[in-house]
């Protein structure tokens, strides 16, 4: 066993050296027109060697290390406590929720402008993740092209405003419905697919939408994107310094206060908050309804579900459609927040991040997904100092998380249903 470990550890260390030394250990230096290769600074070389030693040691003592890591949940007092009584837990849940919402309402008035802007982004991700949670977490359909529906929502608003001057409030339902329609249409061809095959085809769809947006230059402006997307208005009041559209008034003049760019940011945040809360409530309701249970039944056992009279086609399509609907919501808000969108915002990485949020949060669990959305959006911002290592830190956090808690931050809890006693 020990000999085997040693061999394995040695092997890993050598692989580390082979991979990292050529990349980090040499520099290209240009002298005039010729490019020469020269060795890197000693500190870098030492760093690479040190990394190899660390890999060697980790692999050598891996079993003990991982063993103690696995003990962690047991040390955590929350894991082994007795399940709380039903009524008490419900009360605690609602108190916590109320506090969270109150906190979220106060937040924009105490935080800095940048923080509020970032929070709006968090809320958009919450909407996206809650929507994807329906498809992946509840219905068990691995969708890697979810960003396509987000793009549909965003581009619907951008195009409608550019060509027809449609306002945010009109575009919001249209964007969501159009995204839902796309979900429905794209759902048909993948009905028979499951697991890996489904993942690959949805991935393809995501890319098709992005490439279409990129190449339909006449309509979408291609890679240049669409700019000048208007901000939302509050009962016809605009938040800009000057009124852009005839017939509108401006917010700061109506209330006789000084103009501040912050008003708009706060207003957008509040809209996103309201929409995120609506999304959460609607999906929570759906989960307790026949459709929600049908989604889960299909995830658990498709054959049994069919044998009980569930129409697989209808159940799957409803999951795709409803998931896409909320992505459309999020897309419209995103377009309005940025004021400018281009296909760059809807790359595969975006789908991957939303999926990561769902998995990290705990499939099917709304609270978990919300927490994970906050963590995943804010962590990279906090790690800004390490700018180029941000993705690395992000990835490492994800790996650790999956080793330590594969079921996610807050795994889904089953709904307790009280039955009447039989006489």
């Amino acid at each position, binding site marked *: 066993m020990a000999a085997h470990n040693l061999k394995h550890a040695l092997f890993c260390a050598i692989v580390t050296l082979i991979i990292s030394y050529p990349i980090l250990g040499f520099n290209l230096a240009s002298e005039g027109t010729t490019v020469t290769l020269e060795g890197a600074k000693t500190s870098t070389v030492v760093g690479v060697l040190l990394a190899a030693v660390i890999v060697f040691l980790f692999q050598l003592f891996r079993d003990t290390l991982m063993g103690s890591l696995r003990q962690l949940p047991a040390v955590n007092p929350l894991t082994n406590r007795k399940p709380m009584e039903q009524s008490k837990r419900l009360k605690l849940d609602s108190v916590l929720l109320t506090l969270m919402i109150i906190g979220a309402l106060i937040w924009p008035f105490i935080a800095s402008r940048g923080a509020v802007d970032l929070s709006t982004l968090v809320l958009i991700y919450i909407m996206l993740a809650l929507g994807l949670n329906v498809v992946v977490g509840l219905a068990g359909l691995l969708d890697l092209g979810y960003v396509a529906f987000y793009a549909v929502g965003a581009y619907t608003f951008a195009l409608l405003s550019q060509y027809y001057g449609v306002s945010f409030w009109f575009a919001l339902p249209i964007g969501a419905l159009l995204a839902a329609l796309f979900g429905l249409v794209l759902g048909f061809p993948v009905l028979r697919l499951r697991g890996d095959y489904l993942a690959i085809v949805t991935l393809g769809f995501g890319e098709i939408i992005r490439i279409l947006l990129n190449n339909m230059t006449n309509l979408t402006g291609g890679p240049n994107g669409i700019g000048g997307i208007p901000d939302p208005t509050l009962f016809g009041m605009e938040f800009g310094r000057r009124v852009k559209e005839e017939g509108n008034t401006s917010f700061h003049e109506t209330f006789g206060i000084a103009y501040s760019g912050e008003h708009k940011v706060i207003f957008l945040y509040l809209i996103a908050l309201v929409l995120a809360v609506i999304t959460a409530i*609607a999906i929570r*309701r*759906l989960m307790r*309804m*026949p*459709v929600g*249970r*049908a989604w*889960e*039944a299909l995830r*658990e*056992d498709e*054959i*049994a*579900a*069919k*044998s*009980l*009279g*569930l*129409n*697989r086609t*209808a*159940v799957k399509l*409803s999951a795709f459609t409803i998931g896409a609907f909320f992505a459309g919501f999020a897309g419209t808000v995103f377009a309005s927040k940025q004021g400018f969108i281009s296909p760059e915002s809807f790359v595969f990485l975006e789908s991957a991040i939303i999926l990561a949020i769902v998995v990290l949060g705990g499939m099917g669990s709304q609270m978990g997904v919300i927490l994970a959305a906050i963590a995943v959006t804010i962590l990279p911002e906090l790690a800004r100092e390490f700018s180029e290592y941000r993705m690395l830190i992000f990835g490492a956090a994800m790996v650790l998380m999956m080793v330590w808690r594969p079921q996610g931050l807050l795994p889904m809890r*089953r*709904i*307790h*249903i009280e*039955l*009447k*006693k*039989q006489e």
Partner: protein
Amino acid sequence: MLEVQNLSMRFGGLLAVDQVSLDVREHEIVAIIGPNGAGKTTVFNCMSGFYKPTGGKILFKGGEIQGKPDYKISRLGLVRTFQHVRLFSRMTVVENLLVAQHRHLNTNLLSGILNTPNYREKEQKSLDRAAYWLDRVGLTDMANREAGNLAYGQQRRLEIARCMVTEPELLMLDEPAAGLNPAETKDLNQLIISLKEDYNVSVVLIEHDMSLVMDISDRINVINQGRPLASGTPDEIRRNDDVIKAYLGEA
């Protein structure tokens, strides 16, 4: 009530079911027996719409159902259990029973979101029916456990309860006694008889446990290597030479 005429099912070169016929009348328990691999489950799969038979007819309440989609057949009142228990394991026991009552989802999407009185009344009815059947199969205390955590015998009973909440007219049980201990088998025996007597359900039953089959069946069909071998009352089957030969030859 159910009539299977010359049913055949071919998988590539293998004729798994060859010209099998059987009929089930109202208020009757009919057993299908036969050695392993005889094609019994395949007959069930054809009847419940999982396979499209390559030959023959299946009539349920006078209408042809062969080749109809599975979910439509079960909505007609023909539901089944599986040889290997198929529960929604990560859902609770009650949820399993509720899902079974959700055949017409689309009609109540909006009324559900708005939680209208009509919707609530329907939901309450489903809950009551679930509670009734949980009590009936002795799983009331398990109502909010995850179905996958139940003991094997309990899972079997839950699967039957899940069929019964759909208020079927014909119930197809694929080896319901497999893996049960003698006491559990006796309970099952009683439950099946009561399904017929008290709830007026006809039962088609695949089973290897001969004492159970002989006890409760009104009629028995024997299949061997996909072909019908014999059919008749338990007494007739017991005395049938072909059947004895097939079973002894097997053993």
